[in-house]
Structure formats: C-alpha cells, structure tokens
C-alpha cells in the first residue's frame, strides 16, 4: 500500500528522488488522518527548506498541521494546482497531490529516511 519507490519521513511525508531533485508530498495515511483538506500554504519557489522542519501547512476540516520536509534544499517548483483544489491531496497523495520539488542539498539525507516496509510498520504501530 505504500509505494516502493518512495522514501518516508516519520512525520508522514514522502520524497521521490530523481537525480538531484526530490519531489515531496504527504502520505496516504496522513491525508486520511487529516480528513478533507481545504487549504495548503505552499512554500515559495526559491525558498530554502531544511529537513525535519515545516515546509508547508495543511488545513483540513479537522485540523491545521505542519508538513515536515523529509529533505533539505531549495524549492524548484510547487504544485500550483493545489492552491485552488487542495482536495487533490486526498484523492491522489502520491501522484497528482505532490507538494513541491526540492533541489537536494544533501542527497545522503535520503538514506536516513524510512523505506516502504519500515514506514508500513510505523503506521501499523500508530494506528493501533
């Protein structure tokens, strides 16, 4: 259920690495816990992002939550589609619901992240 090609942060975000770029988003588990997403505060293009810190904020009908970046770097691109239709994150968190593309400052950071099976265990633990 958790895509194999992604790496996961324990704060329920993912990164898809392609060369020196990493696309980030929130996991299916996260979107489900948040409920209907009504707004996402997208980062600015060119902004510096630090791993383990807030890169964006998501508001759902239930709560307001920080999106914790799994990686460090500079924002190359943001998913503008989300500013009008943030519910895409609920519908398709791993593809159309991507949040931003980051130019990876330290690609080795990715090695510290969880793989799909490790993340699956974390989620199982949390949903107990």
């Amino acid at each position, binding site marked *: 259920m958790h895509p194999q090609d992604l790496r996961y942060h324990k704060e329920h975000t993912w990164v898809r690495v392609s060369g020196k770029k990493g696309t980030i988003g929130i996991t299916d588990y996260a979107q489900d816990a948040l409920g209907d997403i*009504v*707004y996402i*505060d997208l980062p600015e293009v060119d902004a510096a992002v630090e791993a383990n810190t807030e890169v964006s*904020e998501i*508001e*759902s*009908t*239930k*709560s*307001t939550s920080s999106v914790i970046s799994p990686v460090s770097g500079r924002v190359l691109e943001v998913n503008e589609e989300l500013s009008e239709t943030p519910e895409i994150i609920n519908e398709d968190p791993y593809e159309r619901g991507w949040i931003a593309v980051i130019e990876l400052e330290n690609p080795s950071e990715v090695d510290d992240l969880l793989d799909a099976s490790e993340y699956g265990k974390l989620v199982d633990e949390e949903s107990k």
Partner: protein
Amino acid sequence: MRLAILGAGPGGYVAAIRAAQLGAQVTIIEQDEVGGTCLNWGCIPTKTLKASADALATVKGLGDYGIELHGNIVPDLSRMIDRKNKVVSTLVKGIKGLFTSWGIVVKNGRGTLQAPGEISVVLKDGSTEIVTADSIIIATGSRPSDIPTLPFDGKHVISSTEALEIRDIPGSLLVVGAGVIGCEFACIFRELGSEVTIVEALPHAVATEDGEISLILEKELKKKKIKLITGKTVEKIGIQEDGVHALLSDGKEVVAEKVLVSIGRTLNTDGIGIEKLGILTGTRGEILVNERMQTNVTGVYAIGDVTGRMLLAHKASAEGIVAAKNIMGIPCSMDYQVIPAAIFTSPEIASVGLREEQAEDQGITFRKGLFPFRALGKAHAMGEITGIVKILSDASTDRIIGAHIIGTHAADLIHEAAVAMKAGLKARDLAEMIHAHPTLSEALMEAAEDVNGEAIHLPKK
C-alpha cells in the same frame, strides 16, 4: 451647570447626552458632522462597506451551500457607497434627534479655547460666537496621519477617509501599513476584486495583537491572494501614467492604481487653544488627564483619542461618561482593565485584556486554553471553520486575564470573555457555565475548559 463640549464624535456626543440626562445645559461644538470619525469616516462606514463585501463573498460561495446561481455577480461600488451614505445619514439624524430630545445645543463651526470657561466658535457663515460654560470637555479626536514621502493628494494617494468615497473599484491597491485600518480595507477591496499589496514596516500584520492570531490573519490574507510585504517601508512614490510607482526600502517597486496610507492617526490637539490655557500634553501631543478625565486646568476635561491610549470609539464614549458624571458631581474613575477591541478583517479579530507577551512582561504566570473553530459543530454547519479562541488565566487564581479570538463573529463573541473578566470570573466558571448547542459561543467554553486540559472536543495532548 453649563457644559461646553468641543467635538461631537463618540466621546463628545455620549458625554453630552449623559451630562444632559444628569441635568446639565449642554452646548456641543462640531466643525464637521455629528458622530465624528467613527460614524462618518470610520467604524460605521467601513462596516457598511464590509457588509457589502461579505454579501459578495457569500454569493460567490453559494455553490458550497448547495445553491446554484445563474447569471453574473457584479459588485457596484458606487451603489455600495450610496448605501453607506444612507446608513451614515440615518445614524447622524438619530444623534441629532437625541440632542434635540435632551435639549443639547449644537454649534456647527470650529471652536477654539480662549479661557477655562470660554470657547470662540467660527461658524460656517464666517461669524464668530463666544460660548461660555462652567466646564469644558475637549473631544476633538484624531485624523489620518500622513508621511512626507507619501503626502495625500486625495486621488492617487489617499487616506481611509477618501477610500470611503471611491466609486470605481481600483484595479490595484497598495496599502501602506498593515494595522487595523489597513488590513480592514485590504480585505474589503480584495473581495471587490482589486489586486491588493500591503507594505508594513513591522515584522507582522496587526502587530499589536496576539502573535498567534496575527499569524493566522497573515495566512488568511495569503489565501485571499493579498500580498503582504513585512519589514519594509515605502521610501518614495512617483505618479506615472500606469499608476503610482512605490519604491520600497529593499529596492523593489510596487505599482498600483491607488495607494492607501494607513500608518496611524494624528491627534487633533493643534489649533484648538490648549496652549493658551496652559493645558499639559505628553510626548505624542496627547492631552494629559487623570483617571477622572480632568486636565491640569480646573474645569477643563479631555476624553477620547486626544488623551492618547487606545484609539477606540467605545473607550472615548466610556471616558465621556466618566467626565460627564464627574462634572455633574458624581465622582467616578475610568477603568482601563477591560476594554474589548475588534478588527473587522475577514475573518474578524477581537481581544480583551492581556496578551501572552504582556502577561509575561508583568511577571504573571498564566495558563492558556486554545480551541479551534474547526472543532466546533456550529462552525462546520455555517461553513466558517477558520480561527481560534484563546483564553489566558492567572495560574494561581484561575481568573481570566485575557481572551483573543480570530474567526467569524469574533467581535460579538469577545464580550462573554469581557463580562467574565469584569466580574473577576475564573476560567473554570466559564467552562462550567452551560453554553447552548450548537453555537459559536461554545468555542469560549471549550477554550476555558482547555485552560485546565479538559476540552471535550480536543484530542488527548
């Protein structure tokens, strides 16, 4: 007792009526229109325009409520201004009617203090009349401040006063100053369709509010696509064919059809003769008064904006009542502890009492309760889930020391907290007071419960 009042704004007119109720013979001198800034160029006209902007927002969002609308939605600012003028004139007439019923004499002209019991009034026809009185109240208020780099020209560079007379929606608007007035106008014009940029010298919008609340407002401004530039000033402006070019302190340029300067207000203490009487003023030119609203000159009182402190209509009115009672031989003092304040942005902001930073500065150990509207059934039913209620209570006594709200109807909701503070209630009292369901007021109950970690509709922390 003959009482003369200089200025018929929310300070002066309230003082006039209360003094007349207590038996005074009152003459009130006003160079513009009764009701002052509040009624003519401030609170009431802005809220009237906001009602139009809110109506527009409701109509634009009808789809969310399951209502389909066929046809175009066209905001007509000219008709909104007509409506505003009608509301203002109805209320002005209302005050004039109250004056007549209490036998209060209005002199329409510019008054200048001549002696402790004497005011000369230059009437509209150019003639001068001397008004004598046993006591005088100065209630001349304030006006929008301008800065040398941004002088008002009434067309391109305007103050809040002129912004209430614009009949065409500007394509773009630069608001200088993200205080109360700047943010209120930014929200109104954005709703009407203007591209709005706000430039603020301080690090945050509405910087005098609770920090958490000002961050939520900033996010709401962003959602509306209002561009907020903080920590920058406007250095220079130039008027060109395509609009006003404003050069910011970081070297960037903002071009807008109009510039609204809302950097604060200047007290109207100049040219009214206070020097002649030797009335003492403070560093900002504010008239110094004691808690009974007396100046250093016997028989001369001052109330409202000219005394400094918060520039709030209801504070001026309260001071007016205190002055009137003291003049009529009923000793009383002004209590500044519980003065609610509201900002009519979308969403609204309201506060009473201390902010967290103030409580810290005063060395008060406090507990904090916080409740988001999105955890409330009524807010969901209404489709208004943005915002929070925050309640602060003294850690040792549990007495409520402050409340801060951002969200729909915040300005009305704050009064429950204000009454609680006035009565010296504890957070637990508010939490144990049964609130009707489903209402927005339940957010105050839940925030009060959260002070002791007992909010029912919040997850375990």
